[in-house]
């Protein structure tokens, strides 16, 4: 672990217009134009992250915990650079690799080998780079001769293994893991956790989002607790997990969305603009 900062959030807020995609589509929009325009003008954005600041050092493994809708996945999205903050700055240094959910970036008709190329290129490698690492990836996945069979013949655990194998061979500087380890048999899960620990020695920064608090405590250096878009606790895994447990017992869920709405909101342009 070094002192270098790998990820930094500086007063980051993120607002969504939940209803941006007009569910009824063009037809709805045209048929009810006045009411839709009024709605678009009057709607209030939903604030999913509220003035969040933190720094993550290179080589650390940190976890984000919190209830559904607390802003964990939004945080990962901001680090990955797929979404932009509404205000504040996000800095993430180095090659970022997200661990995708089961089967994303794969095609079930292609062989395991072809899928490695597809997935690797989607995640940012060139074909030549994937080919260089092909043998290692196949070896790590433990799929053996099955690697030339179409993906549809694989079990979900096997697909997860393949996905993890590609991701870890990207040589990422930052690895983003969004509850992807729950599949795969125990032996492979252990291997993944081992690999992650090895990663941290290699100065790879890991950001983990999960509800599996046992794993969180086991692998994390630090844990961040999010609640309704606020970063309410950070620190040693044991303490933060403990706090989360306490809050789970105490806080009532109903207070949630109202809180977010009553705050003053800076206006953001809508997609119609």
């Amino acid at each position, binding site marked *: 672990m070094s002192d270098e900062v790998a990820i930094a959030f500086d007063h980051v807020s993120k607002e969504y217009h939940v209803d941006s995609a007009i569910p009824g589509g*063009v037809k709805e*929009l045209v048929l009810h134009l006045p009411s839709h325009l009024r709605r678009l003008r009057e709607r209030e954005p939903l604030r999913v992250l509220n003035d969040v600041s933190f720094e993550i050092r290179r080589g650390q493994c940190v976890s984000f915990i919190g209830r559904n809708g607390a802003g964990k996945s939004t945080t990962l999205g*901001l680090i990955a650079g797929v979404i932009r903050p509404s205000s504040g700055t996000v800095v993430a*240094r180095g090659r970022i690799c997200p661990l995708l959910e089961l089967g994303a970036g794969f095609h079930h008709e292609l062989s395991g080998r072809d899928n490695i190329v597809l997935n690797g290129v*989607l*995640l*940012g490698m060139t074909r030549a780079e994937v080919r260089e690492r092909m043998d290692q990836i196949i070896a790590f996945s433990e799929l053996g001769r099955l690697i030339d069979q179409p993906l549809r013949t694989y079990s979900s655990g096997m697909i997860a293994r393949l996905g993890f194998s590609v991701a870890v061979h990207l040589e990422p500087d930052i690895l983003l893991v969004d509850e992807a380890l729950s599949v795969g048999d125990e032996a492979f899960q252990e291997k993944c956790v081992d690999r992650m620990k090895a990663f941290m020695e290699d100065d790879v920064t890991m950001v983990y989002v999960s509800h599996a608090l046992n794993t969180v405590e086991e692998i994390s250096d630090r844990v961040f607790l999010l609640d309704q878009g606020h970063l309410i606790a950070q620190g040693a895994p044991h303490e933060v997990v403990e706090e989360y447990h306490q809050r789970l017992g105490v806080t009532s869920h109903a207070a949630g969305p109202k809180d977010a709405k009553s705050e003053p909101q800076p206006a953001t*342009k809508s*997609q119609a603009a």
Partner: protein
Amino acid sequence: MSTATGNISGGRATTASGPLSHRRVRHYVDLVTVLVAKEFRVRYKSTVLGYAWSVMHPLAFALVFCFIFSFMSKFEVENYIIYLIAGLFPWQCLSNSIVGANFYFLGNSSLIKKVKFDRAALVTAGVLNEIIHFAVSIPVVMLFMLWYGHLPSLAWLWLVPMLVAVQMAMAIGLCLIVATCNLFFRDLERLTTIAMHLMFYVTPIIYPENVLPAEYRWTLWANPFAPLIRCWHGLFYYGEFPATAFLGAVLWAGAMLAIGYGVYRALVWRFAEIV
């Protein structure tokens, strides 16, 4: 673009060495290649049939129109079947890519949500896929031409690739618009299907343009597809190169590409929020 001041660096893989670095171009090419290869493997699982399907569709249409219009049409076109084939094959390519574009982004939502990659590659790959299908069906067109005594000319060697390039630019532009907008208005798929059906009859594909009454001739220039299809007819049927129509096609393709890229660039940063 509102208050966003995000300073997100995608790492050495994407941004470290400038917007158009060698590695970035290399990666874009590789990305399009693997995406096209994927579609191909899936579509041509049984190779022979795959090819047959992509040729049969426009061919079947051509035969049906030829049959129907042979006894009920008001216009006389010599070797009508060639005229039909010359227009229907490129039309099929355009129409397939534009209707399919609805799912170029929407169908990859889990990737768009999590991975930062050049999303335009999905559109380029989708269009390229249809273009390749069209290109490999050109020999069928030539076969019909030979059968009816039309001889392909040597100039095709550069005219055909040039027209294919114009067609590709046009399709990419329109597909960027459709693929992007369908993320925001989810019923666009039905609308594009209807629109392409209408355009099929508005554009002189199955009838010659001199059938149009003089007061409607202006539509030939107002319709982005008409000059392009006119070029294909010129090449495959009339055995000439219509320079004015080509100029029109190039202008339309350029405009579509510019508009499409503009729409895409303006909205791409919201894709992950909305899929």
